[in-house]
């Protein structure tokens, strides 16, 4: 029983952490929190089910198509909902534009895909055991993303350009960094990470349009608690959140578990609006 709670908690925590990282990557590039992070997660599951289960594509092809779709949605988000409002002094506008875009995609999915949660295909033909792929797939995805981001930021010039843009946008522009292309690339990257989270967690969360608001909220908790733009904080907070949620689930049942999570979240946030890790101006993996 404990094993099941821990496994489920860690697995779902990884999904939340990845959505948190999605938020962070978009934030680092633009100082904007986008409502589309949760929607990306939802799309990972829905499109995965669509391509592989329904259309019958081979696993790898379907997988890459899903990630490509995520990258595309990320880019669309930047062009349509972020760039136009960056110039405006009105702070609230980006919240509304990304909300509008996220809603459009969610509603479209609800209508075309349906409001029922549909099963996500089993990706590998391995027998179900204790440590089943629905648990280790999200964990693998999370670990892979962390490693890749680390490599990106430490060992490629592009990654370091991302770090530069997020630390000091003005100085980055002044020395001639292609700020706009880098921002678009960041949003594409965020799109890939978000859909990967949904894809890896598909078996757990199912292909369900309602995952979008769920992940929008639960994916943001790691960001709020771990500190804006702090990916390490997001991972730690995400895992803790997953474990806490599953424990509460077990102890008081599903509905009150949500209440518990939310209450704790609000209390922590009000006590420390900067997050538990404190405000971190540096972007790190």
């Amino acid at each position: 029983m404990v094993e099941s709670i821990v496994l489920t908690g860690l697995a779902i925590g990884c999904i939340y952490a990845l959505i948190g990282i999605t938020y962070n990557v978009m934030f680092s590039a633009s100082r904007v929190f986008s409502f589309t992070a949760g929607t990306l997660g939802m799309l990972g599951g829905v499109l995965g089910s669509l391509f592989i289960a329904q259309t019958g594509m081979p696993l790898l092809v379907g997988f890459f198509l899903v990630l490509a779709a995520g990258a595309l949605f990320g880019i669309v988000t930047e062009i349509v909902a972020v760039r136009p409002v960056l110039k405006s002094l009105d702070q609230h506008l980006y919240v509304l534009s990304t909300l509008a875009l996220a809603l459009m995609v969610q509603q479209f999915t609800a209508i075309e895909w349906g409001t029922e949660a549909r099963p996500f295909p089993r990706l590998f033909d391995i027998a179900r055991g204790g440590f089943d792929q629905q648990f280790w797939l999200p964990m693998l995805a999370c670990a892979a993303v962390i490693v890749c981001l680390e490599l990106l930021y430490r060992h490629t010039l592009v990654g370091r350009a991302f770090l530069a843009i997020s630390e000091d946008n003005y100085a980055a522009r002044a020395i001639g960094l292609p700020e706009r292309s880098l921002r678009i690339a960041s949003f594409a990257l965020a799109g890939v990470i978000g859909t990967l989270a949904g894809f890896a967690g598909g078996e757990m969360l199912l292909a369900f349009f309602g995952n979008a608001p769920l992940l929008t909220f639960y994916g943001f908790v790691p960001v709020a608690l771990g500190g804006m733009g702090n990916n390490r904080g997001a991972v730690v907070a995400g895992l803790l959140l997953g474990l806490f949620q599953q424990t509460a689930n077990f102890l008081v049942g599903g509905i009150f578990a949500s209440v518990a999570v939310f209450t704790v979240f609000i209390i922590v946030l009000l006590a420390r609006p900067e997050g538990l890790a404190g405000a971190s101006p540096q972007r790190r993996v």
Partner: protein
Amino acid sequence: MPTLAAEPLLEVAGLSAGYGKIRVLRDIDLTVGAGEVVALLGPNGAGKTTLLRAVSGLLHWSGKVRFAGRDLTGVGPRDTVRAGLVHVIEGHRVFTQLTVLDNLLLAGYEMPRGERAARVEEVLELFPEVAAKRHERAASLSGGQQQILAVAQGLIRRPQLLMLDEPSAGLSPVLVDRVLLVVQRMRETGTAVLLVEQLIAKALALANRVYALSRGSIVLEAETSEADLPQRLEHAYLATVR
């Protein structure tokens, strides 16, 4: 055989710029010739930084700006850097979370990799105190060293014109001299420099020509060889409209 360019390297005419509704610069005319060092002086709030930002494309402007025969209307900093016009911004802003080496590599982001690495080494040779810390985070450098790093970043792309915004601000006298020595060396190698400075005496010692900016307009233009320049400058700044 190159003919003598009739057109100055940088030509600014009727430039106006500001922030939102606030007009800071009114109708600025300014030129910088190839290989010249031009000092831009003026009290705070005069618009010196705004002028540099406009020319390098960080800010919207109206009027006319031509660089190396090319019209810079609507051109942003990425393209002005490509064209050979580099702006080292005020406040020794470097990327503190990245190493010195990374800071320099990023300045050469759009260069081919081999050329970039070689150029970074070349520039580091000019600044041994910074080269010694090449693998350290820029955050561990002192303010003065960060300023030197910022100037070094500006040199990576081999600019024809380097614009420096108050490079001496906050530096100890020793480091000020170090930085201004670099400027002198650049004059010797034929790079033009537009230097915004607060230290009048030092700027005048280095420059060929000087402009004084006050309240958004050019109030003085002279060769540095001209007599009684310091008094004329003081008069230009503090003179009231009446």
